[in-house]
């Protein structure tokens, strides 16, 4: 009976630990599907699988990465989407430090608050969301894993089933592309300037 109690408390512990990540999983679902209902279904389905396959989880390995792996597979299966490397045409021509250079060269007197160039981010809001949402799935997911979930390259490589080298190059390309679309969004709406003017007045 003692064993049984032990087992039961272990299960309870595992369940509680898995549920701790529900916000992260939901956020990922929202970013990948762009649809609240779909994200809710995705998370529910994922946690059903988590329960069913809980015995396959190896004690001591990374629970969050394991959960994300299940979530990702569920996403692929439910939406019949393929997550594959985008064509190089998309990112090949984007230079390193795209956004940094753009802001530096295009900067006009009075465009931004004085001081550090990174202060420019204070004026971005929806643009960031839009830029992330506009990334191809394979790029979007690595950005989410790394920048939002703080997962290591090794954990990401386990989740997406690619070597670490692939994860790295994908992540770097994703960031380049993200900078480009961030610039486009910000520029398109003249957001940078408007906000700034608004602030001055």
């Amino acid at each position: 009976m003692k064993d049984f109690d032990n087992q039961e408390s272990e299960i309870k512990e595992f369940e509680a630990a898995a549920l701790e990540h529900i916000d992260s999983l939901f956020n990922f679902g929202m970013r990948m599907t762009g649809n609240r209902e779909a994200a809710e279904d995705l998370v529910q389905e994922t946690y059903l699988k988590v329960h069913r396959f809980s015995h396959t989880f190896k004690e001591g390995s990374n629970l969050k990465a394991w959960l994300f792996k299940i979530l990702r597979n569920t996403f692929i299966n439910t939406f019949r989407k393929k997550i594959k490397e985008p064509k190089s045409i998309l990112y090949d021509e984007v230079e390193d430090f795209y956004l940094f250079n753009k802001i530096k060269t295009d900067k006009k007197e009075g465009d931004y608050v004085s001081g550090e160039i990174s202060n420019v981010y204070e004026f971005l809001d929806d643009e960031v969301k839009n830029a992330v949402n506009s990334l191809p799935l394979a790029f979007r997911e690595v950005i989410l894993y790394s920048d939002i979930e703080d997962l290591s390259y090794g954990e990401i490589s386990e989740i997406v089933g690619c070597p670490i080298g692939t994860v790295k190059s994908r992540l770097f390309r994703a960031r380049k592309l993200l900078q480009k679309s961030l610039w486009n969004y910000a520029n398109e709406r003249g957001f940078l300037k408007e906000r700034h003017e608004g602030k001055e007045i």
Partner: protein
Amino acid sequence: MTCKEAIEQLHEFLDNELGDANYTKIRQHINMCHECCEKFEFEQALKKVIREKTQIHGAPQHVLQSIVSQWAELNEERSRPKAPAVEPKGTFLQGILDLLTLRPAYVTMAVLLPMTIIGLAAYLAFFRPAEYSPIVKVAAERHDSFVNNNMHLDLVSSDSNEIRRHFQNLQRSNLVIDVPECNGHEMELLGCKNYNLDGKKSAYVGLRGHQNKISLEMINGSGMNIAKLQHEFYKGRSYYFGKHKGYNVVIWKHGNTLYSLTSTMDRKGLMRVASESILSYNK
């Protein structure tokens, strides 16, 4: 450390993927190099801004609740002892009801059965075994009347040149006819006849082997779909073998002409005649 080296490791640095030694080196470089510092700070701020702006509210409470209750249900099912055996009467009734429910297995059977029947019917209609092939039948029947002397040959001769000339005189169409050389394989040309079969030019040559009589028939196949025949009939082989009325028939094609060799000889012997004295002639 140069700027280039530092920039190369920028992402790893920001993503906390560097070992202590490398991390310190870069830290030192950034502290000294204003340009790199600006770039590193810019990229770091971007990483931070992505995290801040794309984080939305947590998962809705009702999702969490439904997961928890689903799990509780599943756990209860798992720990519940197995259901006691049902009474025999109940099982019987259950069995009958089970038969009536639409189960995947029944649906599969309902789909597979007609498909199998149609497949079988199609097989019998289009890919019948050789014995039933009409070409084989015609060849065997013609040979039969030749053997039983019911067929009047236009020319009876043992000279292949004479037979060839006879054909050339008779023939007004573009039918390709040539009498094969027998290469001295104890074979004798008997005679020939020119036919018009269903509008298709057909020529018939009788040969006598050592013991068996053999018929060679040549049909101008330009009216037939020889390519289709090749595919369905020969099945990739260069010849086709069939049987009818106890006669063995070998069929092959050369150009637009369809040849058939018929005899009571066994398959092996017939193939030898065909390949040594006639097939080789066509090469």
